[in-house]
């Protein structure tokens, strides 16, 4: 019998996790081919490369040695151009045809810039790829004025790095508040106040209309209010998943590839994971795109196990985000925006601490937490809130306690015996494997 031929399209987090899981779970040796437009690296590390706390070599995940050890045939620098689901053939951008028995679509996302004149000009960057990071590193000097367009998660992940390079930072946002997709208005206000106290200028309701050259600087023009002059402009105005190449392939795509609980598309031999997949949301049970690292990891592991012949249904992914800005932790979980939930909140302005707990019945279905990073209280509560949302532990009498004191999460977590519910939970139905020398634990 011929060895099964697995094709992994995309060398990001989902692809890496899938490859290692295939090798860990398979009973018979199979062939794995990886198609990756870039040499695989971790996007999560780029902010720390930007602030020079790690060397560039630290960003890479699938080194040559790693791929050899996993016996992966890597086609790096190539993109998938089309998929023939009847013949089971993927055609690459150079015309190469790769035959497969099953394949994973994990082609990730691309940064999108605000559609204004000058958005593609000199000195205007996205911060998404390693090449973007290299370009930004080259341009930011101590004393540079950096204007970041967009006050969302991506811009906040590099905020500390920009400040640590000695640059002056202004953030402009078209929405009325910062972090509109990560925290509520109260949380956004707390973070904005903290940033202003840390010398970060913030301008909301700022609709960018044009970016011009102004000698060796850049000038940003807005629908209202004065111009801004910058040395470096970073556009963090969103991402879009890379699925255009699948148009007319017969793969069912809504906002992402529509997948079932096994993460298969409408074509059983084709899986999708990470930003490419519209999979089950743990809280709502509905299809959603969770363009976050943990979803890519879990999707990749589930697909890898299923490609290796297991049949593991994914319970759904939980949206979780955390970012630290100037030693303030900001995190949210699950359905934190749910208007139908019973919301309990607490704000301690003097300690920059905020908790918002969203209940459906007596179960926590969403949460927001903000607090100082050097406060152990914050870090511990971050994890416990995740545990409460992940398990949906019935909180019974502790809901009333949290209503009186939204900050006493630990008592509710421990005394509601959440640990008991959590301990048997695993993603793949077995204890996880340590990463060893590889970059992924599966």
């Amino acid at each position, binding site marked *: 019998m011929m060895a099964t031929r697995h094709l992994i399209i995309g060398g990001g987090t989902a692809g890496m996790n899938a490859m290692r899981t295939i090798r860990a779970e398979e009973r018979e040796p199979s062939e794995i081919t990886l198609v990756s437009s870039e040499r695989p690296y971790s996007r999560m590390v780029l*902010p720390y490369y930007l602030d020079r706390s790690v060397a560039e070599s630290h960003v890479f995940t699938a080194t040559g040695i790693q791929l050899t050890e996993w016996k992966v045939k890597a086609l790096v620098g190539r993109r998938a151009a089309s998929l023939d689901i009847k013949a089971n053939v993927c055609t690459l951008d150079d015309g190469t045809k790769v035959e497969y028995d099953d394949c994973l679509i994990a082609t990730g996302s691309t940064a999108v810039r605000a559609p204004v004149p000058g958005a593609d000009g000199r000195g205007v960057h996205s911060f998404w790829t390693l090449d973007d990071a290299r370009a930004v590193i080259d341009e930011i000097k101590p004393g540079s004025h950096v204007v970041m367009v967009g006050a969302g998660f991506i811009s906040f992940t590099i905020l500390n790095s920009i400040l640590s390079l000695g640059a002056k930072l202004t953030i402009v946002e078209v929405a009325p508040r910062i972090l509109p997709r990560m925290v509520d208005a109260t949380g956004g206000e707390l973070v904005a106040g903290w940033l202003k106290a840390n010398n970060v200028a913030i301008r909301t309701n700022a609709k960018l209309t044009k970016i011009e050259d102004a000698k060796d600087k850049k000038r940003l023009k807005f629908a209202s209010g004065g111009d801004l002059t910058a040395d470096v402009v970073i556009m963090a105005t969103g991402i879009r998943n890379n699925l255009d190449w699948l148009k007319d392939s017969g793969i069912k795509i809504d906002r992402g590839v529509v997948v079932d609980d096994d993460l298969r598309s409408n074509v059983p031999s084709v899986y999708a994971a990470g930003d490419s997949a519209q999979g089950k949301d743990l809280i709502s049970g509905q299809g959603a795109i969770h363009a976050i690292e943990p979803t890519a990891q879990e999707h990749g592991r589930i697909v890898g196990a299923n490609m290796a012949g297991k049949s593991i249904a994914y319970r759904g992914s939980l949206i979780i985000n955390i970012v630290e800005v100037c030693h303030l*932790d900001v995190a949210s979980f699950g359905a934190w925006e749910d208007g139908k939930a019973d919301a309990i909140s607490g704000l301690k302005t003097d300690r920059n601490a905020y908790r918002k707990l969203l209940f459906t019945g007596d179960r926590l279905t969403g949460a927001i937490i903000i607090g100082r990073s*050097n406060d*152990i209280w914050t870090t511990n509560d971050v*994890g416990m809130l*995740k545990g409460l949302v992940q*398990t949906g532990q019935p909180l019974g009498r502790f809901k009333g306690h949290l209503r009186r004191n939204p900050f006493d999460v630990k008592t509710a977590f421990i005394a509601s*015996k959440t640990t008991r519910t959590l*301990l048997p939970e695993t993603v793949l139905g077995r204890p996880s494997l340590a990463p060893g020398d590889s970059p992924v*634990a599966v």
Partner: protein
Amino acid sequence: MKVLKLTPERCTGCLRCEIACSYMQTASYQPAKSVIRVSPFEGHTSYAPYTCTQCAEGWCMTACPVGAITINVAGAKDVVDDRCVGCKLCTIACPYGTMFYDTSTRKAFKCNLCAGDPACAHACPTAAIEYEEVETKDWLGDFAAERVSHVLAVNGGR
């Protein structure tokens, strides 16, 4: 594997475990940097130590984007400092709230069972913390559930 067996009924709240832990983990006597933490119950009439269960999934380990959390010789999930970039993903992935972050080193840290000779168990004078070959479990749930009347009494505990 050997784990930290916690018997909260024996805990007197002396905090020796926190002091020993912080000394072993960070070479300074700073309970604030301990990864085993003693919580008070019932208005400081009862206490219980709380730390990493070394769970089977290892949510911290599978969430790490750079493979910086591994399994050490004692079977504990352990942070490899040189690989950790400080992204905090493990702190939000761990559903038990037992990941920590050191703002001075900008690294995550956690209970690593002191690689097989846990300082907290040595330091505990009442055997509330023992290092034994038993299955990890929810050591505190029943104890805590019985000791919440104080916090629940206010406004009838609804």
